[in-house]
């Protein structure tokens, strides 16, 4: 019964989405207030019914309703309750429903928090969001119905993939999707502005906070995914340039460019058509990502097991949405050029560089992800593009970018006089270069070219980001208070600096050791002694495991005991590695158990990962910077 309610609620949501999509757009053309005001009500209604539907699906999982096919495929009686809930979004149909719920949620937020926005523009924005919802609801109802029945019902389910039985799964997809889907707001604003034909600095000001919030969630979502892969997959890696990872990274790169481009449009009315194009691209890349992951077109550990029929649907939807938007763009963009300028040394120049380099980076990632497909199309041979290519290619635009980052923050709009600029920055530049060489030498004993560049870049960004906050703090009294916007910028860039520290140090100084060990033997890695004390059996709620007990010492002093496991889950019966991790702010010790080699010996992988936490700390700080800048006064609701 409940699944039927869930299904029916979705159909109701679809009809509301249709109203929300069509009527306000027509109303906006005719300036018909009644029709335009349908948008808000329809949005609230749609959200209500999608939420009911999602709730019904959760209910089905929690109550072990194996007469629902999706539940039977992805749940199990012995699954802990928390994972029964997160199993809802563990596969295609349910995660798509979550996507729809989140899209609807964003729509409600836009409907609720846009009191300063002109009625006509808002009606169009909500209308476009409604049409997007229609597309996704149709996709779910026609090809991916989560409520499809299984008759006769299964006695027990096929179990949630053990890799996903983890707290990381509970939060990574929802957060990631909030970001991913959030770019639909920027997209809707772009389309709405193009339909209406006028686009000004106010438009940029209304749109920017939504974009920043979406970007924030995407940043955290990607970081969570990386952290999850690190501790769950057992190899110690934190980014694999896997097609699905790239699918989330490309919108992030373009989204970052968009935020910066919006700054220029908001401030000076420049780069309007470029901002439009970025808004369209960010969401298009989100859609492309959805397509890549759910259509079966690429090979990836992350890809949902799904079939080409769904692929055709998404591709069709993607085609309509993107071609429609770009057609509007080709029509409207020529008339948007403004006739103001800026001097070569100006913030506009640096933001332009920022955009250019980020777009090059995004294009390279896109190319690397799609090239195997294209090459296969042309001559049938398969080429492979993996981390070795991506790592090199990605550094080409990003190394210049990180150095320019530190400069752009302190450059005035329109025209910056060279003298004061050099005087402000020369000491920090010198300090950064010195620190970049000295610090790795001090702490890790050596320095090389790439390492030196990375550390200098990190030091430069950190120092440069701190200049404004520190100055404003020292001049507390008086008018030199730093705005939230500027503070947010500094914090976000600081986060980037932390991120680079993490990446550079762990790449240069990380140590990996694969060895055969017997109980009683000790291995030394990076000054730590790892003693494999014993191997024993343990029992979990729905798995049995072989556990290694590893004692870690340094210079004879006890540090910690680590317990890497190999788990065999009762239903799916494949073996999963649970790594033992000893985290601290400046390093991780990482131990994973491999194969039994016979004769009492086991293969053990021990890793030393200096500064790896900074990678994710950096991302969190970046997101924090976004949060701070969104609370700036100029984005607040006007007093009522």
């Amino acid at each position: 019964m409940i699944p039927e309610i869930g299904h029916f609620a979705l159909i109701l949501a679809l009809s509301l989405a249709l109203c929300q999509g069509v009527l306000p757009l027509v109303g906006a053309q005719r300036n018909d207030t009644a029709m335009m005001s349908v948008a808000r009500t329809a949005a609230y209604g749609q959200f209500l019914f999608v939420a009911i539907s999602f709730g019904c699906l959760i209910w089905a999982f929690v109550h072990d309703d194996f007469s629902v096919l999706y539940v039977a495929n992805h749940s199990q009686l012995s699954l802990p309750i928390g994972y029964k809930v997160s199993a809802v979004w563990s596969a295609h149909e349910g995660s798509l429903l979550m996507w729809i719920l989140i899209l609807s949620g964003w729509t409600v937020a836009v409907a609720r928090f846009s009191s300063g926005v002109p009625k006509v523009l808002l009606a169009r924005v909500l209308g476009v969001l409604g049409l997007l919802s229609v597309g996704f609801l149709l996709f779910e109802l026609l090809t991916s119905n989560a409520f499809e029945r299984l008759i006769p019902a299964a006695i027990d389910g096929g179990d949630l993939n053990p890799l996903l039985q983890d707290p990381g799964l509970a939060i990574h997809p929802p957060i990631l999707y909030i970001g991913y889907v959030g770019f639909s707001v920027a997209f809707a604003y772009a389309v709405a502005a193009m339909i209406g034909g006028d686009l000004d600095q106010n438009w940029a000001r209304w749109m920017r906070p939504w974009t920043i919030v979406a970007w924030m969630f995407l940043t955290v979502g990607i970081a969570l995914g990386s952290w999850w892969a690190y501790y769950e997959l057992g190899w110690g890696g934190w980014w694999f340039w896997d097609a699905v990872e790239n699918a989330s990274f490309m919108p992030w790169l373009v989204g970052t460019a968009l935020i910066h481009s919006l700054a220029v449009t908001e401030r000076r009315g420049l780069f309007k058509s470029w901002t439009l194009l970025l808004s369209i691209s960010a969401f298009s890349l989100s859609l492309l990502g959805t397509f890549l992951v759910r259509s079966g077109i690429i090979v990836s550990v992350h890809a949902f097991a799904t079939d080409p029929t769904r692929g055709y649907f998404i591709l069709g939807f993607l085609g309509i949405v993107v071609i429609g938007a770009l057609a509007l763009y080709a029509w409207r963009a020529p008339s948007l050029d403004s006739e103001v300028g800026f001097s070569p040394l100006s913030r506009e120049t640096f933001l332009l560089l920022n955009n250019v380099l980020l777009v090059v980076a995004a294009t390279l990632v896109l190319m690397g992800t799609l090239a195997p497909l294209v090459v296969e199309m042309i001559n049938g041979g398969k080429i492979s593009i993996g981390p070795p290519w991506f790592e090199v290619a990605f550094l080409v635009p990003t190394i210049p970018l990180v150095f320019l980052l530190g400069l752009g923050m302190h450059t005035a709009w329109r025209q910056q006089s060279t003298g004061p600029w050099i005087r402000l920055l020369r000491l920090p530049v010198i300090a950064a270069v010195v620190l970049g060489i000295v610090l790795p030498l001090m702490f890790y004993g050596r320095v090389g070219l790439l390492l030196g560049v990375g550390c200098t870049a990190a030091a430069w960004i950190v120092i440069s980001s701190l200049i404004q906050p520190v100055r404003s703090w020292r001049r507390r009294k008086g008018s030199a208070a730093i705005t939230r916007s500027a503070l947010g910028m500094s914090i976000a860039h600081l986060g980037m600096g932390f991120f680079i520290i993490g990446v550079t140090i762990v790449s240069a100084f990380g140590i990996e050791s694969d060895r055969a060990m017997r109980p009683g033997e000790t291995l030394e890695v990076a000054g730590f002694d790892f003693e494999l004390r014993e191997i024993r059996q343990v029992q979990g709620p729905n798995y049995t495991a072989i556990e290694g007990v590893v004692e870690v010492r340094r210079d004879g002093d006890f540090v910690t005991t680590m317990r890497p496991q190999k788990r065999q889950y009762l239903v799916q019966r494949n073996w999963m590695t649970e790594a033992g991790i000893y985290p601290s702010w400046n390093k991780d010790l990482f131990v994973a158990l491999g194969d039994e080699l016979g004769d009492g010996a086991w293969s053990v992988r021990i890793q030393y990962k200096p500064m790896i936490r900074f990678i994710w700390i950096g991302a969190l700080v970046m997101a924090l910077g976004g949060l701070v800048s969104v609370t700036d006064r100029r984005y607040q609701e006007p007093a009522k």
Partner: protein
Amino acid sequence: MTRRLAIMLAAMLVTVSAFAIDTGKAFDDPVLQARYEHLIAEVRCVTCQNQNIRDSNAFIAADLRREIRRLMSEGKSDAEIKEFLVSRYGDFVLYRPRMSGKTLFLWIAPFAFLLFAAFAFVRVLRHRMMLPIDAETTKEGEAQ
């Protein structure tokens, strides 16, 4: 459909996440060992979903590692080993595509894009430099 099923079945015989350690001995010579470890990180496990043979537990990965060890102990160079692999499995087996007609564009692309972007940047800048710098709108600004 059946083809896909078969390949899925074959791939299911692979354990998903346990990484691989060789049952054979590592090289005694640290230089050789380092070269070996570097090489196996760049070879794709052809039955897996996007893993290299260093991390994969599939039997084909173990076979490939064994062959590479054998070739290395016979004194073959990295290039010869890569050629051995590619002649059997195609370019796809290497994570780092080799320089060839097909893959040349891959390695040139980053620099080509950067160059193109530089031209675009210069063009926009020169256009904007010429225009009047209006003191039009006064938005809330950053403290400077």
